């Protein structure tokens, strides 16, 4: 978004960090602790190459994120714009950005 003030940008950065932590927590639960214990999850981490996430595991991740964030974050609409390869080839950061954008959008605004 252009024209964001410095204060708002700092605010966004801290929200992004928080959401990244929450997504990583759900990811570790889906993958299982045994495999994910020493795994560093950043915005640049890819679901397919880095995490080798199965598509059924992405379903489970989306399920947890839907539960965590509720109605304001429309994961169904987000995923509807992609096919399975596009979903699984995403970076963790793309999901984080989508969540942050949804959480920050005014409740009255329609989706793009």
């Amino acid at each position, binding site marked *: 978004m252009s024209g964001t003030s410095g204060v708002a940008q700092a605010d966004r950065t801290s929200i992004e960090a928080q959401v990244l932590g929450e997504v990583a927590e759900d990811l570790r639960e889906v993958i299982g602790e045994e495999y994910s214990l020493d795994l560093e999850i950043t915005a640049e981490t890819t679901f397919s190459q880095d995490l080798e996430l*199965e598509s059924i595991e*992405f379903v489970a991740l989306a399920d*947890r994120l839907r539960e965590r964030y509720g*109605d304001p974050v429309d994961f169904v*609409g987000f995923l*509807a714009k992609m*096919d*399975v390869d596009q979903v699984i080839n995403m970076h963790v950061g793309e999901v984080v950005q989508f969540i942050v954008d949804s959480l920050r959008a005014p409740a009255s605004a329609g989706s793009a």
Partner: protein
Amino acid sequence: MTEVIANDVRLHVQRLTPKGGAATDAPVVVMVHGMVMDNMSSFYFALGTWLADAGCDVICYDLRGHGRSERTAAGYQLADSLADLTGLLDVLGVDRPVHVVGNSYGATMALAYGLESSDRVASLTLIEPPFLIEGLGEEMARSLSEILVAMSDEEVAGWIEDGAGRVAGRALRSARRLIGETTIATDMLATPPFSRDALAALPVPVLAVYGENSDIIGQAEGLAALVPDCTLVILAHHTHMVLREATAFLRVLLGWWLLDRDAPQPEFHPPTERRFETPEWVTQMVPPPNLARPEIAQKLST
């Protein structure tokens, strides 16, 4: 994870609705995936989220023994699968007729469900259903044996373990356990053939989709000839894997079928950049296989 107990089995279910929830008169769509090497995720990403976003109330679930549903030791006959589906709709409180969308074995199951429980079914979409009046059990077993061939071939197994990594390795192990530790193989062989008379009286509309290059394309015309209200769509340059290959067109086709059937049927324009062909090892399989062959059993146990 959303889990329900239906027909005494723990099933993994995902309900997908548009933002703000589905309208009270929205089509309820149930998606039934294929067998052994498949789970709900194929439908979830190809059609589930898209149809939900377009307004449908979508139910995706993992069949018994698949994905994140319970792997029971037995209960993989067609009748069990139908009872699981009825149990699922009951526990979810779905009291309106549903649009069942099935892929491969899931489509065969959908057709059987339409015959058995037509009062609960609004329409059927059958994507690549194995369909025979005689010898359906052997056909189902043939599909299973194709998977066995893929799993048993050392070169393929090696490639999967080394090159394709964790994902394919886990899918392979999961399929091995399903075939090796449950009655699914013998249950598939016992699949009863469809009744000509029952099909001729099927009271629900059917949308049947096949790939022109599918190994079971020969079964399409027979189905369309018997079922009274059948719209047959054959996709040029595609195989049995149409759900994966032609996702974009299937979204449009299902959107028309479920939400806008008064509009003209969408036209299919075959892909020019790539033609999909059925691999030779699939077409050269000789039915019916003897799944009890010791060498198969041995391969399964390793």
